[in-house]
């Protein structure tokens, strides 16, 4: 029982020969006489064998070519000029934001310029509103045609 405990505590070291020779002899003798520990060692060895499968893993065919292609694409994209000017990838979001803000500012300026003529809808007459917005006068006939 005590040997079972010793084996469980030193299983990894035992299987990798990282224990003293005297302890190894002792544990070898125990494993030969204890079926539970022999089974444990067998299972442990099977798992350790799967480490070999890990070390043997190789990249898939053409992995190098694929990787080179991806890196070339990345380098090409990072060099691509923005609006005709070469802009670094890291600066591109800032450049796009500045352009968008400029466009918005121009839009607001143009908009407020056109809407400079403020119409007071509460006091202006229908005729005044039509005149300010360049809407032709409607006649009763138009109204009737619309209703039809």
């Amino acid at each position: 029982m005590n040997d079972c405990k010793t084996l469980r505590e030193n299983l990894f070291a035992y299987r990798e020969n990282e224990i003293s020779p005297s302890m190894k002899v002792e544990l070898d003798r125990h494993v030969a006489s204890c079926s539970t520990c022999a089974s444990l060692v067998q299972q442990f060895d099977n798992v350790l064998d799967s480490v070999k499968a890990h070390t043997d893993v190789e990249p898939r065919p053409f992995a190098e070519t694929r990787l080179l292609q991806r890196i070339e694409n990345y380098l090409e994209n990072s060099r691509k000029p923005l609006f005709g000017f070469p802009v670094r990838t890291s600066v591109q979001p800032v450049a796009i934001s500045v352009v968008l803000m400029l466009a918005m500012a121009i839009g607001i300026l143009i908009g407020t310029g056109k809407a400079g003529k403020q119409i007071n809808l509460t006091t202006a007459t229908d005729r005044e509103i039509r005149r300010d917005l360049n809407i032709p006068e409607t006649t009763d006939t138009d109204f009737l045609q619309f209703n039809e």
Partner: protein
Amino acid sequence: MTDQELITGILNREKPAIQYLISTFHRQVIKTAYHFVQNMDDAEDLAQDVCIEILESAKQFRGTASLSTWIYRVTVNKSLNFIRKNKRKQLVRQFETFFSNSKQPGTDQNPEPVTENNSLHHEENRCILEKAVNLLPDNQRIAFVLNKYDELSYKEVADIMNTSVASVESLLSRAKQNLQKKLISHFSEYANRK
């Protein structure tokens, strides 16, 4: 081509230097990334990220460690970041692994004998070890993967982890103790289910 020549070539974005970098290191990067993420598609994506990182940070390479060591460091960091970001994906994989593991011993009335040629058991053993390694703390996991799967010496692992050989020995010893406990507990559960 020396490390410094290669770095100069990379900084100047010279095609032969980039081709040399990829042809020399792609295998190392993909293998190491695979040992951490255990999926070849993810490993290839990570290799791309690692190469881009090397191209972008080449000017920070001071030459105190070898280029290979630096690439290992970048690969390990990228892989661990990837694992942290993809916890959910990992959980789904662990969930699948759990069910595939619990189904085989429990439902199989006539379990196949454990032989070296039995690929089903081999895959099962790989999953058991993978699960146990994934549960290790990061530094123990790095030391174990680099030493056992990448077959690097203690000195090489110490350089990559920027620590001493004694620390690596200690990390590996603790990693083995933890793995041993987890594997024995798994075998006991398996025996109880049987």
